Structures are given as structure tokens and as C-alpha cells.
């Protein structure tokens, strides 16, 4: 399984619709401070089911919606879609390609889809169980967070080991 494509609109600083295609090799994301690189990592976490606002660097879930600038108005919702190549059937679903979509409105209302069919967050979490890429996995290491593997108390570290066992 690999990540084929990321589509976003209205997510944090990505006011306009953007689309990122990925190949299965090594991709580097570069750019100046504050340009939006870590926001891409946040978008991937979020669409895979992240529920902790702290992990997304916000104080409330609404913080992920484009808040406007001096010259642009805020947007009313944020949407991210991630497309996964499933030809090896790692995901327990009968499609070669799986697109997971998440949308949140300022009202707090959320929508979720798998291959354009509406579903619940629970369905996404269950789909990703045991793949290592759900929100409890270790597939996303955030900025400034690598040292934590060493400095968390030895009891907390156990959690990563149990994930990996």
C-alpha cells in the first residue's frame, strides 16, 4: 500500500484547492519558514482520523479551517482527501484504490467519506486498524518531536513498543 495523492482545500494555510501526487519513492517537501510544509503533515494526520487538537497545534478543531488573511476572508469549511493504492489489499476493502475524505464546517459539523460514500469516523478508524497509519501509529513524526522517543518516561515509551509488537 502507498500514498498516491493528497487533495486539500481550506485546510489551514491552503486556502485554494491543491493536489499533491506521490510516487512510491522518497519525496521531500521544502520551502521557507511558515510557508505551510508542516500543515501538509497535519492534513495527512487529520484525514486519517486525528482527534487531538493539541497534536494538530490548535486549541479547537475549528483552527484547521483557513482563517483568512489581511486580504482574504476566512473560509467556511476545510476538506482533505487522501488516496491510497490498495493493490496489495492491505486494507480490508475490495478496491484497488481507496480515497478517504474528511470535511469540517465552522459549525463543528463533520463529514466523512470512503470512496465518496458517506461513513462515520469509526469506519475510517476500523479500516486503518493494524496498518500502522491510523492516529495511534508511529507513521507521522511531527516537527521537534523526534527527541520524545528518548525523553518520555520509560512507562510512556512502552506504548510505542506495544504498537510495534
Amino acid at each position, binding site marked *: 500500500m502507498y500514498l498516491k495523492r493528497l487533495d486539500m482545500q481550506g485546510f489551514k494555510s491552503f486556502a485554494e484547492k491543491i493536489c499533491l501526487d506521490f510516487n512510491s*519513492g*522518497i*519525496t521531500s*517537501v*521544502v520551502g*521557507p519558514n511558515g*510557508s505551510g510544509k508542516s500543515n501538509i503533515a497535519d492534513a495527512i494526520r487529520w484525514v486519517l482520523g486525528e482527534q487531538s487538537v493539541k497534536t494538530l497545534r490548535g486549541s479547537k478543531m475549528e483552527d484547521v479551517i483557513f482563517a483568512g488573511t489581511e486580504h482574504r476572508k476566512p473560509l467556511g469549511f476545510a476538506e482533505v482527501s487522501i488516496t491510497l493504492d490498495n493493490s496489495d489489499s492491505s486494507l480490508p476493502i475490495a478496491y484497488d484504490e481507496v480515497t478517504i475524505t474528511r470535511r469540517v464546517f465552522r459549525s463543528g459539523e463533520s463529514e466523512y467519506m470512503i470512496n465518496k460514500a458517506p461513513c462515520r469516523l469509526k469506519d475510517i478508524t476500523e479500516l486503518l486498524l493494524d496498518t500502522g497509519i491510523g492516529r495511534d501509529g508511529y*507513521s507521522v513524526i511531527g516537527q521537534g518531536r523526534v*527527541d520524545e522517543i*528518548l525523553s518520555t518516561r520509560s512507562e510512556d515509551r512502552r506504548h510505542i513498543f506495544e504498537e510495534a509488537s
Partner: protein
Amino acid sequence: MKKQFLEQFKLINENFNIVFRELFNGGRAGLILVDQENVLESGIDIEAQPPGKKLQNMLLLSGGERAFTAIALLFAILRLKPTPFCILDEIEAALDEANVYRFIEYIKNFSCKTQFIMVTHRKGTMEGSDTLYGVTMQEHGVSKIVSMKMGEKVG
């Protein structure tokens, strides 16, 4: 249950030492169960000894040595149980130029098993990548993406 955990633990421990020795070009590292009597509840301590140096408290290691040790442990876990893709946000920030090259060389050998997407400022990481995406903010506060061929650089 306990037997299964101890087997897994032994494997991660061995892998950790192997990866550490490869990244640091020597030395040794390991994991220690704090409470040998109560293995299923025990905390896990980390030991790391860069080549030629004496084994000391992890706190005394340098910023770069700590980051590289954490990276070794992450790679050890990924070797045992690879995730389909891995998003790494500037995890090599504390490494010097020489260590960044060791880091990206290691990732290249890994990348047949796992797809890596890395946010980086480091030249070495960029040069070792297959694809570069540049993120820009020509208009203040609005991010856009520029797909870049190897050889161009942004920011």
C-alpha cells in the same frame, strides 16, 4: 503472553543495536526492562554509547547524538513492523552535514519497503530524494505548491 512480549522485545533490542551501529559507524545501543520481575508492566530504558566513548547517562549525549539515537530506534521499529508510508517532519534538524548523509543513505535502503515523505531544510536530504515539492507563500498567508525537478531549490 509474557513469552511473546519478551521475544518481540529481544528483536527490537537487536535491531536497535544493528541500526545504531550502522548510523554511528560503531558503538552500541540497547533497551533495558526497568522491572525484570514484572515484564508486562515494566517501563523501558534506553542506553546508547557512541563509538569510542564511555557508556554514560543519555542526558550527557549531545543534541545531535540524541536525535540520531532516536532515529535509530524509530528505524529499528520500522524494520520489524514497517508502516506503508512514513511522514517525517524535519527529524534530522539537529544532525551535522556528515550525519545527514548517513541518515538519507539509510533511508534510501529502506525505501523499497516504506514510502518516505519528508519535510526538510537540509541539502543532503533533498539531494537524496526522488521528488521535491516546494511550498511557497507568494501571497502572505496563502500556501501554494510548486513541483520541482531535482537541482532546483526553494527557500
